[in-house]
């Protein structure tokens, strides 16, 4: 192609009007902060992990007492140990992926590594969401089969909503459980769309482009 060859010849003789920075100007840039996607993904991921840890710690004392009274203490301990084991496994994976990201890789490897790191965090979130869903479901099934006991504990012993009869209370109880779970999951999905959607859209399309070349 003649035009591209022409551009190339002029390109190399480099008469483009390019800016010229001094030693000092470049030196001051070394001290500036980076704003790369990788860094943002790292910070947001750390934020997510902290968020989930905090949510787990936020469980109120009354809820814990209820769990003990209804006879779920041992099961909850086992579930928690399992949960944290998987949690630690994810954090290790995440760090390993993150450490692998290097700007000296080829463009394709770099983008692949960024997307992989992102995916680990995504699976971590998914694990949390699904885990929360399963737990909520399991607990509610348990509560349902033991609804007499739930009513007994909540209304009679703790005096929550003591004006309601058993039927009303049970309907209310499960409705509240459902609404809270739905709001939580909705928020997380929204967060994903907003943050990662915008952050990774271009990166993903570039990665697809490179993969297309190879296929």
């Amino acid at each position, binding site marked *: *192609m003649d*035009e*591209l060859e*022409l*551009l*190339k010849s*002029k*390109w*190399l003789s*480099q*008469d*483009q*009007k*390019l*800016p*010229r*920075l*001094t*030693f000092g100007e*470049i*030196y001051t*840039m*070394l001290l*500036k*902060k*980076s*704003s*790369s*996607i*990788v860094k*943002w993904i790292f910070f947001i991921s750390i934020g997510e992990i902290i968020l989930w840890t905090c949510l787990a710690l936020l469980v109120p004392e009354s809820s814990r007492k209820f769990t003990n009274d209804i006879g779920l203490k041992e099961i909850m301990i086992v579930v928690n140990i399992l949960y944290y084991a998987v949690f630690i496994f994810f954090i290790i994976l995440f760090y390993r992926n993150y450490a692998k990201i*290097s*700007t*000296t*890789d*080829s*463009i*394709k*490897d*770099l*983008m692949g590594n*960024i997307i992989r790191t992102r995916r680990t965090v995504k699976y971590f979130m998914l694990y949390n969401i699904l885990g929360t869903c399963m737990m909520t479901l399991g607990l509610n099934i348990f509560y349902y089969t033991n609804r007499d006991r739930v009513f007994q504990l909540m209304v009679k012993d703790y005096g929550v909503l003591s004006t309601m009869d058993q039927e009303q209370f049970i309907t209310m109880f499960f409705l509240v459980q459902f609404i809270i779970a739905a709001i939580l999951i909705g928020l997380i999905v929204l967060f994903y769309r907003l943050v990662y959607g915008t*952050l990774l859209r*271009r*990166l993903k*399309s*570039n990665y697809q*482009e*490179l993969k297309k*070349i*190879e296929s």
Partner: protein
Amino acid sequence: MEIKYKNTVIPIQQVDFSEICNVTHTSNTNTSSTKPLETELEHKFVKQLEENQNIVHKICRLYTNDQDAHNDLFQEITIQLWKAFPKFRGDSKFSTWMYRVALNTAITLYRKSKRTIKTQDYEGVSFKIASEEYDHTEEKQLSLMYSAVKELNDIDKALVFLYLEDKNYKEISETLGITEVNARVKMNRIKDKIRRILNP
């Protein structure tokens, strides 16, 4: 404050010079005489980047559409290069290594959108042609070509950039992470694409 007090009160022969030096050193780093010298590594790095900065500017030109975005990208590339510099072994040329880090940064940096791609091309890009062969049509052709290249997607741009920099297909394929054969095929497709942009 304390030092000033000391300075005014204590007779000149008793002034502890090392103390004064220390104070000026930490409180006023801008004074050229007391400014701490950059480390050897920093000096080496900045010197090489200064010499090769044209490469980075050309990439910034290609990937951004205004001066602010150009400067932001230049700065980000500088930071990424500096972060990767300790890993630079010197078994390849500084410039070769630079191509990779700079292009990686340009392609992965989050930029808001590709809003003003066609219209606000800053200062235009003109290629000065030596006076004896000065030819308006040629210069026009060149700037048309350049704007066609700017319309390509990020990956295609990287390929064309390396091609214009006279890199062989082996280097191009290594930088992008694709095979040499595919790099060639892709380059031919890009040439078609440019042709279509120029003659719709």
